[in-house]
């Protein structure tokens, strides 16, 4: 049976081995090897570097909570260098990845006097505002950064955030009310003219048919009226959710556009 140090008593925990595992996509195992290296060589610069790399591997394995804990090992050593700044930034990024946008903003606010990572953290906080659809706050936070910083990303994002404030919106309430008045009108309001036409024909056909057949075939007319009523309700509710989806789609389109075009995405900073 092999001992913990590996075959022949030699340490298997070399950064080179961990690097190889990381490059092969074995992120969990790579993180373990980095941590092993860090604990076998405690207290030095190499250990801090290994902790940082372990955090990166855990991030790649989508284990953000564990990654933040490992990055804390780098920042808690008391050394205020660029590696500590990078770890600080990556901790905030793990909050971002988990959708904890308020924590990102609070973290950036706490570190605003930290010269090693204040600007990147503000950049990330601005992205958090942007992702949270608070476009005015995003614009003003991006605006505080130098427009040329992060390969001109800040300047670009100011423009995109401004665009976000003028996204076309549709009121779900208005869409539902319009559809209640005239079946399909709410869909047309959201730009779905084809759906609007189908809705109008379906509801008008069924309710009109029920009205026309009321005297001749009462039971068939009642069936048609019930179906028409259900389609009428579906048309109103469909317009309501359609308007909500219209708004959501616009936000998502803008976010996709920003991520595709921005020169430096948040996760690309300090990506050692």
């Amino acid at each position, binding site marked *: 049976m092999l001992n913990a140090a590996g075959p022949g008593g030699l340490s298997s925990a070399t950064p080179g081995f961990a690097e190889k595992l990381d490059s092969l996509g074995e992120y969990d195992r790579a993180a373990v090897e980095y941590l092993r290296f860090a604990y076998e060589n405690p207290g030095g610069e190499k250990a801090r570097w290994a902790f940082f790399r372990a955090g990166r591997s855990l991030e790649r394995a989508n284990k953000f909570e564990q990654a933040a804990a490992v990055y804390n090992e780098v920042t808690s050593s008391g050394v205020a260098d660029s590696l500590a700044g990078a770890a600080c930034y990556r901790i905030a990024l793990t909050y971002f990845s988990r959708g904890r946008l308020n924590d990102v903003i609070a973290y950036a606010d706490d570190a605003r006097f930290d010269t090693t990572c204040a600007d990147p953290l503000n950049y990330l906080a601005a992205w958090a505002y942007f992702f949270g659809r608070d476009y005015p706050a995003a614009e003003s936070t991006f605006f505080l950064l130098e427009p040329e910083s992060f390969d001109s990303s800040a300047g670009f994002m100011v423009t995109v955030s401004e665009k976000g404030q003028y996204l076309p919106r549709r009121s779900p309430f208005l869409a539902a009310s319009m559809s209640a008045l005239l079946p399909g009108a709410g869909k047309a309001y959201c730009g779905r003219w084809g759906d609007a036409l189908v809705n109008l024909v379906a509801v008008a056909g069924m309710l009109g048919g029920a009205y026309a057949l009321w005297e001749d075939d009462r039971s068939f007319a009642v069936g048609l009226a019930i179906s028409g009523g259900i389609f009428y309700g579906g048309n109103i509710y*469909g317009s309501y959710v359609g308007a909500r*989806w219209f708004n959501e789609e616009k936000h998502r389109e803008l976010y996709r556009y920003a991520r595709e075009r921005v020169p430096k995405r948040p996760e690309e900073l300090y990506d050692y």
Partner: protein
Amino acid sequence: MRLIIIITITCSSIVFAVDSLETPDTLVSARKANTLSVCASILLKGYKKGISNLETHECPMTPSCSEFALEAFRRTNPLKALFLAVDRLTRDNSFAKYYYPKNEKGKLVDPLDRYIKCDKKPRRYY
């Protein structure tokens, strides 16, 4: 005119009431809601096995309208599910190809999540 306004307000109120209802699990009348959902699910499953299989024409959307309705009945309250299912039937038309993205099989993608989670922000940013 007054009648039209009353109808509009009533219908809109119904829609918002439907939307504010919780899922069957958390409803006060959960048992009743579940019974309705189960009945609708049985009918839909019967349609899928007995009728849908015989048709040569497949639904151009994914999930198909019956699968969409089944999922709606499983995940939301029966009235909301009914409205969502009926709305889906009217959206499955010749114009749909202009509004929905296609997947690799050429089907138009229109998941239920769009309609029941569309105001919830995504949790992951990439």
